[in-house]
């Protein structure tokens, strides 16, 4: 078993998870099904993935270019066409029949995610939110706001490590309390310097760390967080049907030092926040040890759009659960320049007239 295409139990058409209905919908016969109904029909495919100790060997593309050497060939279950997928793709669409395909082989064994947050924002809502987002942005290039651009928005499940980490340690800081008073002809300033020590345990819960090496999207994948923990569900492949998905390419051992560094930075803020009642606090020393740690592998939903303007790539990302957005927007130089000139002239005239009549 390498790929799975979930099909409608009634008519055999492709099934996709519908965030608006929170069910699996067939766009042909308009039927929809719950997760339990699919499991009853297909059997527990996810259990079979867990039982697989390692993924089956993949058939690689035969060309020698860089992409092909990291790509693999799969066969579409719906039409029999060959699908080329790069090394991290876990769910995609057949380029011929456009059926959603889950590459189950890439989610097997140790690569089976523990949890998933299903998409809560539908494609239509994502596009509407994006239109609201850009509606008041006067300095965007004209073609950025076109309908054609919105068609490039894709729903993608991205892999994250979620870390629960119990840390023990403390900080040493120098804090100052400053007091002023006046007596007679003199103003007095008293500065008291304290050595401040705080020790304690910090229990980090669900710290997210992107498990994809793709540095281009790394910032977007960081700042679309946070997700709401309450909506995590045990992973099932059927949620990926109708969306793109990426599998992780950063293992725990490779991510450990970056995670430790990020948690240390948060620990500094947390310990320093506990130092209250001073005018200034500066950190001198921190020590931190890990008492207990648990890593989970999760798939999180993101609506993603890439846009090219003046030869530069711009990324827009929306949290597929909460709607939080992150993106670098292109600025139309012409519009900004026109605004600048207009503002300059108006300000100049206003200040000139104001100064003239106030004299």
């Amino acid at each position, binding site marked *: 078993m390498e790929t799975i295409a979930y099909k409608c139990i009634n008519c055999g058409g492709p099934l996709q998870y519908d965030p608006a209905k929170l069910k699996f919908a067939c766009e042909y016969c308009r039927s929809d099904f719950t997760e339990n109904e699919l499991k009853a029909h297909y059997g527990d495919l996810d259990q079979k993935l867990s039982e697989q100790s390692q993924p089956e060997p993949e058939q690689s593309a035969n060309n020698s270019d860089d992409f092909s050497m990291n790509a693999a060939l799969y066969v579409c279950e719906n039409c029999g066409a060959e699908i080329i997928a790069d090394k991290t793709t876990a769910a995609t669409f057949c380029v011929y029949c456009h059926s959603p395909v889950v590459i189950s082989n890439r989610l097997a064994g140790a690569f089976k995610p523990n949890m998933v947050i299903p998409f809560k924002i539908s494609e239509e809502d994502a596009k509407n939110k994006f239109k609201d987002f850009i509606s008041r*942005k006067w300095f965007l290039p004209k073609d950025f706001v076109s309908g054609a651009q919105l068609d490039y928005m894709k729903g993608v499940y991205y892999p994250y490590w979620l870390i629960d980490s119990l840390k023990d340690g403390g900080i040493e800081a120098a804090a100052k309390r400053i007091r002023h008073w006046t007596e007679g002809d003199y*103003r007095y300033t008293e*500065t008291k310097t304290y050595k401040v020590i705080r020790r304690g345990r910090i*229990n980090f819960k669900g710290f*997210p760390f992107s498990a994809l090496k793709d540095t281009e999207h790394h910032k977007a994948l960081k700042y679309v967080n946070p997700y709401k923990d309450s909506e995590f569900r045990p992973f099932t492949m059927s949620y990926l049907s109708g969306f793109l998905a990426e599998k992780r390419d950063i293992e725990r051992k490779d991510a450990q030092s970056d995670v430790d560094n990020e948690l240390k930075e948060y620990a500094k803020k947390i310990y320093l926040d506990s130092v209250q009642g001073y005018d200034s606090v500066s950190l001198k020393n921190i020590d931190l040890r890990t008492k207990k740690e648990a890593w989970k592998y999760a798939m999180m939903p993101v609506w993603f759009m890439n846009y090219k303007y003046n030869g530069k790539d711009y990324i827009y990302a929306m949290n597929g659960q909460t709607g939080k957005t992150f993106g670098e927007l292109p600025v139309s130089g012409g519009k900004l320049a026109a605004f600048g000139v207009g503002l300059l002239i108006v300000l100049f005239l206003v200040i000139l007239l104001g*100064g003239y009549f106030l004299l």
Partner: protein
Amino acid sequence: MNKIKFAKISVILMTVISIMVFSSVVYAEGINDTPDVNTNEPAYSTSASSKHEEKNMGRIILTAAGISIVVTAISVFMIWNSYKTNGQTEPYPYDEKAPLELTASDDILVDTHVERERINRDGPPRDEPHPGGPPPSHR
């Protein structure tokens, strides 16, 4: 408050402040520069006052241009910057998700330093009541 709103409010505030500052500066300089008027001078002798008006107008134009350029440059930069970093808020709400359980807490006074500064040389020394803290100790 989002960054675009912040940029708009900043522009309005800076414009108002600029007008106030500019007007006060020019007005103050106008007072200093006002020449003594000799009431015995004939009424048709206006060369000194017309030169003063040109000098003042020149100063007004220069100041207006300077303030406009500065405000415009800051506004344009703020708008450009807001487009570049849209949505870059805290990704991990550590105050909710990472509670701290303090096991030890110590604040040790290591130094006390008092400085005094004379503030009023004119007139007799004022006798202000002490705010009620410990008497100052000089190092």
